[in-house]
């Protein structure tokens, strides 16, 4: 009941003309960003973040949430029409979505994706409300040791689940944490890793790292692999799914919604893993698994619902605990801190208008996205035909001025150049960028929580494993470090056995 009253208050904030405008702009920008191959929500939010300086934090967060949700919708368009995922979480949609397009059913594929995304996105916001309120009550009892353990768990989980090589993900995490220690120590005032640059005394802004890695790093990668988008030559009609389409899709949508939300809450496992799991589940449960990969509508409905539902799930740890679980939510957390807000359980008590305004805007955003994705798909397809020759320089220009605008510092622009090269090389070496950004954002918080804990225990490390919640979370963190090692050993043994 309390949550419902708060939600009503949130709606009163979200439906102000200015916030509705930011919500609309966010969802449009998100859909375009999601549809453009190579640019994900992380890049979109970090590039557009400087445009929000000067507006109030609630409107800024509404814009960012709109981009985040919109990107999940937008990724579908290119997956279905060009067989190229606009966003990593839309990879699974290419398998059946593109086949449907080849069979002349592009409209139905895009339609069911839009409806499934709407249902899942809305349901995930309801679940977010249901989970967040009790979780905040639990989180209020957390002390520095629990926060330290929680953040450590977040960092190890995102490294462990990053996909690809766990070794590389852990390496990147260490690198990100090292970057975060640069600057003047908050307690002693001692300069650390500043290499005699006075500009580094304030540390390295997370936005410089995020824009370099996700924005210009990606531009450099696209420069190497000049991409030509080849659209399926079909007219997009019959966006409304038929009764038979609904009969086949309602179960995948329902399962995808719950699966996506749960996966979204977990640190490190975002929309991509949610859609992979959903596709695998649907194929396994289907009485005709042979249809998958040949244009099965369930292969579009399930994964698309799951990746949209993960956005609501990802907002749970961000809003209730102040701990992001992915690169995108890490950028949102950094942005909130730049706006002077301290995400965490107290946010619900101190800034209820902000939290509930954002939650309410997510409902509105999902309605806007449904209308746009049903009515304006041909328009988005036209936008997608903007040549790279125009888009890529525009991204560099926006990124550069945006990073400069944070502190009005040309030194930051120089650092951006360095992190752009780092981002490009990371892409080449298959090093995941999300753990790096997450550790840059979480690094100072981890260190502060550890120091506060040790001060509480008069320097004894017992405090971390004598408190049950902290000990439990640390065990999970340890498991995330050990698991890839066990997996590797098992794989080696299996390969050895098959070889002999």
């Amino acid at each position, binding site marked *: 009941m309390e949550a419902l009253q708060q939600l009503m208050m949130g709606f009163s904030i979200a439906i102000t003309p200015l916030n509705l405008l930011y919500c609309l702009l966010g969802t449009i920008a998100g859909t375009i960003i999601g549809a453009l191959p190579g640019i994900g929500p992380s890049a979109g939010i970090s590039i557009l973040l*400087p*445009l929000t*300086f*000067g507006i109030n934090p609630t409107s800024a967060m509404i814009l960012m949430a709109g981009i985040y949700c919109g990107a999940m919708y937008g990724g579908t368009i290119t997956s279905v029409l060009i067989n190229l995922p606009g966003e990593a979480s839309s990879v699974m949609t290419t398998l059946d979505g593109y086949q449907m397009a080849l069979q002349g059913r592009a409209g139905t594929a895009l339609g069911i994706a839009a409806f499934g995304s709407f249902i899942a996105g809305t349901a995930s916001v309801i679940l977010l409300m249901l989970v967040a309120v009790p979780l905040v009550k639990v989180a209020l009892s957390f002390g520095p040791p629990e926060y330290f353990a929680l953040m450590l768990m977040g960092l190890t989980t995102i490294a462990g689940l990053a996909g690809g090589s766990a*070794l*590389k993900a*852990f*390496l990147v995490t*260490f*690198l990100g*944490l*090292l970057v975060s*220690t640069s600057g003047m*120590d908050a*307690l*002693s005032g*001692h300069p*650390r*890793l500043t290499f005699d640059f006075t500009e580094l005394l304030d540390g390295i802004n997370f936005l410089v790292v995020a824009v370099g890695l996700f924005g*210009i790093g990606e*531009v*450099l990668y*696209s*420069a*190497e*692999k*000049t991409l030509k988008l080849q659209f399926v030559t079909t007219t997009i009609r019959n966006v409304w799914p038929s009764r038979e389409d609904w009969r086949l899709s309602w179960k995948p949508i329902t399962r995808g919604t719950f699966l996506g939300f749960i996966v979204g809450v977990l640190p490190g496992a975002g929309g991509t893993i949610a859609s992979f799991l959903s596709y695998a589940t649907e194929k396994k449960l289907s009485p005709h698994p042979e249809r998958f990969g040949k244009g099965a509508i369930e292969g579009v409905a399930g994964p698309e619902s799951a990746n949209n539902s993960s956005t609501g799930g990802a907002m749970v740890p961000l809003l209730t605990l102040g701990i992001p679980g992915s690169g995108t939510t890490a950028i949102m957390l950094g942005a909130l801190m730049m706006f002077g807000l301290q995400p965490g359980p107290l946010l619900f008590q101190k800034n209820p208008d902000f939290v509930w305004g954002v939650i309410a805007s997510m409902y509105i955003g999902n309605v806007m996205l449904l209308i746009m994705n049903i009515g304006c798909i041909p328009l988005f397809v036209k936008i997608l035909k903007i*040549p*790279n*020759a*125009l888009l*890529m*320089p*525009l991204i*560099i*220009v926006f990124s*550069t*001025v945006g990073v*400069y*605008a944070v502190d*009005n510092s*040309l030194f930051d*622009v*120089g650092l951006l*150049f360095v992190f*752009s*090269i780092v981002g*490009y*090389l990371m892409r*080449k*070496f298959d090093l995941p960028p999300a753990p790096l950004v997450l550790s840059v954002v979480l690094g100072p918080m981890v*260190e502060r929580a*550890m*120091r506060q804990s*040790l*001060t509480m*225990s*008069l*320097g004894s*490390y017992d405090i971390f494993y004598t408190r049950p919640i902290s000990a439990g979370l640390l065990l999970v963190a340890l498991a995330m470090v050990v698991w890839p090692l066990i997996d590797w050993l098992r794989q080696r043994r299996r390969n050895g056995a098959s070889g002999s």
Partner: protein
Amino acid sequence: MKRAEQVLGLVLLLFAVYIGYESSLIEAGAEFGMGPGFMPFWLSVGLGITSAILLVRASVLPAGRFEPAFYPEKTGALRVTLVLAGYFLAIVLMKPLGMPISLAILTAVTMPVFGSRSWKAITFTAVLTLFGVYLVFGRWLGVPLPMGILETVLPVYGPIY
């Protein structure tokens, strides 16, 4: 790519050793637990260990397990170099020429790299970048852009003459 992974492991290992040395010069202990040097030191140890494993792994695994080449196409490498060179040039010119002009130059340099062949379109976009950056960021959002030689012609503050 095997050689490239070896180089990456080695460079990161050397970087970790350097950071570890720098951090060891900072006080690691404090009255309760950890001082300012504690985190950077132990993080550099972590980075050192992971990069050493990466180096060993890249040396032990057969070359067939890696991508055949760092740059499958030479033209791809050339395009990346051109964008980076253009970007570097723009950053160097930002103070003397101003941010709008340097970003306009950057646009003009990078557009052909991404496939534009029309000089009319390139010139038009570059000019649009110059005024767009000035009007959107300088005037509308009030960012005090470095204007360089344009400082008196296009002021960031005050009325536009």
